[in-house]
């Protein structure tokens, strides 16, 4: 192994010479760069005759030192002078960091940018909605362009494959509602109202809402990721050049599948949640299933089912819309696909909950309480 880089100072005729020894390579430098910087000027010469080996980093240090002290380099062998010449040519002002902005400006800037993005996204979503409506019109005018196979395939992906996870989730939700309800209502001796709680809450709110959240996470994200990847690999551009509208071929089937599947899955989720609640009532409140079913039918108005079934397709539409919209917005790189997928899920769940609040007010207003 070569010797560690070092240097000695020489005084001759009032002129000082720095003599480097050892290997001026990055692995042998040690603290040499700092020590060299602290050498007081002026230096007349840098002697490299004792240097065993050199790389560009060593050459750079010599070059900088020579430039700082206006010193001449002597004793450099062929390779060393070539390297020094090379770094000398590369010594140009280069920007290293993005410009610094004060924190206040940065915060204001970010708030502004976030607001603009939110506004732009809402506008974009509205535009996308318009484009989707147009393509629905197109397909209705030319029914032969309707891609039934694509839609059926989406039915399976969005609906059938989700049955397992949604069933399990709803079953557990039913148990949780029943359990928590029973604990609270027992304080008033009103455990029997647990059944009201289960029936009305699942059909009206939780069945559909939880399904929407699950579908947003499962299918909305998949839509964004699929379309985003297709954008990146230029599949969507290829489609356009062949004369296939991506709206009709990709977005419409996905939207249709979500819109049709959401009410079915929401209803299924409510029923499974009621079964879960019923089992808990049987096990811990000693309410037999027959009584449970009878009570459910008495206390749950049919309008509760309507409320759920009316909300579900709207939620499905919102989920598919934001998933497809975010996917189609991908432009730059694979990283953006990830960001857009996250955005699609967050946006879908947010919009679903906002709409749910509106629906709650609306249905109370029309008297379906």
């Amino acid at each position, binding site marked *: 192994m070569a010797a560690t880089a070092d240097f000695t100072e020489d005084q001759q005729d009032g002129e000082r010479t720095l003599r480097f020894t050892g290997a001026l390579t990055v*692995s042998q*430098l040690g603290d040499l760069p700092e020590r060299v910087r602290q050498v007081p000027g002026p230096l007349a010469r840098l002697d490299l005759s004792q240097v065993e080996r050199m790389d*560009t*980093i060593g050459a750079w*240090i010599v070059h900088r030192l020579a430039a700082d002290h206006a010193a001449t380099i002597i004793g450099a062998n062929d390779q060393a002078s070539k*390297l020094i010449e*090379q*770094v000398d040519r590369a010594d140009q002002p280069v920007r290293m960091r993005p410009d610094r902005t004060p924190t206040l400006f940065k915060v204001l800037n970010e708030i502004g940018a976030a607001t603009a993005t939110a506004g732009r996204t809402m506008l974009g979503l509205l535009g996308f909605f318009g484009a989707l409506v147009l393509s629905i019109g197109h397909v209705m005018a030319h029914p032969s362009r309707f891609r039934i196979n694509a839609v059926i395939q989406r039915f399976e992906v969005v609906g059938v494959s989700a049955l397992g996870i949604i069933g399990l989730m709803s079953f557990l939700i039913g148990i949780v509602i029943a359990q928590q309800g029973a604990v609270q209502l027992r304080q008033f001796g009103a455990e029997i109202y647990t059944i009201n709680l289960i029936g009305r809450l699942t059909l009206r709110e939780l069945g559909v809402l939880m399904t929407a959240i699950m579908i947003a996470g499962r299918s909305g994200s998949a839509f964004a990721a699929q379309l985003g990847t297709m954008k990146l690999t230029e599949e969507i551009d290829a489609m356009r050049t062949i004369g296939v509208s991506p709206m009709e071929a990709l977005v419409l089937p996905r939207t249709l599948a979500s819109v049709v599947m959401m009410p079915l899955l929401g209803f299924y989720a409510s029923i499974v949640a009621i079964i879960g609640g019923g089992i808990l009532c049987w096990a811990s409140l000693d309410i037999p299933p027959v009584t449970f079913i009878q009570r459910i039918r008495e206390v749950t108005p049919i309008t509760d089912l309507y409320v759920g079934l009316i909300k579900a397709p709207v939620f499905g539409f919102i989920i598919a819309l934001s998933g497809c919209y975010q996917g189609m917005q991908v432009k730059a790189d694979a*990283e953006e696909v990830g960001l857009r997928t996250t955005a699609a899920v967050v946006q879908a769940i947010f919009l679903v909950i906002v709409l749910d609040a509106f629906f709650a007010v609306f249905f109370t207003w029309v008297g379906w309480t």
Partner: protein
Amino acid sequence: MSPVLPDDADVVIRVRDLKTAFGEQVVHEGLDLDVRRGEILGVVGGSGTGKSVLMRAIIGLQTPVEGSVEVFGESMVGRDVTDALDIRKRWGILFQGGALFSTLTVAENIQVPLREYYPDIRPPLLDEIAAYKVVMAGLPADAGPKYPAELSGGMTKRAALARALALDPDLVFLDEPTAGLDPISAANFDTLTRELQRTMGLTVFLITHDLDTLYALCDRVAVLADRKVIAVGTIDELLALDHPWIQEYFNGPRGRTAMKSARPAATDRT
């Protein structure tokens, strides 16, 4: 012509009897290869002959089924990423897609190997080093603070080369450095590689499809076919061989054009 050099040759990479496979699919079998110190070795072969896999096997990213791989005289088979650091400091690798770290700027990308291996280097010197590497790799002076997503294809390759050369390595692996570049950028990249190789005395392991690059740069060319290196030599030596793929490759229409354009330049150089 044989891929194996005599025992007394000054060899940086020595591959013996290498076998690599993905499941049932065997990529290499009984592959031998020697790379001399200070040479530019071009590796060519049809698509799917495992050029990149060979590189990955040499640098230890792909574990061979059998055989031995030595780099700087040390075995690289089955070595962990945190192992053999002394070897890893001495090589630089330019991946096909650049493989720049997407969350770091170009300057920070170049500094990663330096920071990792030499934590004693102070930030001002790190910045200076990254700055001259940026210029040396032929990047414009405002490229330092840019993120990989903002770079064009050619700039990405240059930034990746700057990172590969950050530690002033003895050995550089270049995986299709000129693929996807326009002819002018590709020619510039060839010149750059040649220049850097000469001043720094690099050994270069170059995978390429680019016939112009082969003619312009390589001291020797290794041909990968039938799961092994079938021949290694200068292009003239290879042309004298009677192997259908080699003849097709160098004597096909593209090969002839590249040869024609390279010959005058080659005589200029010598």
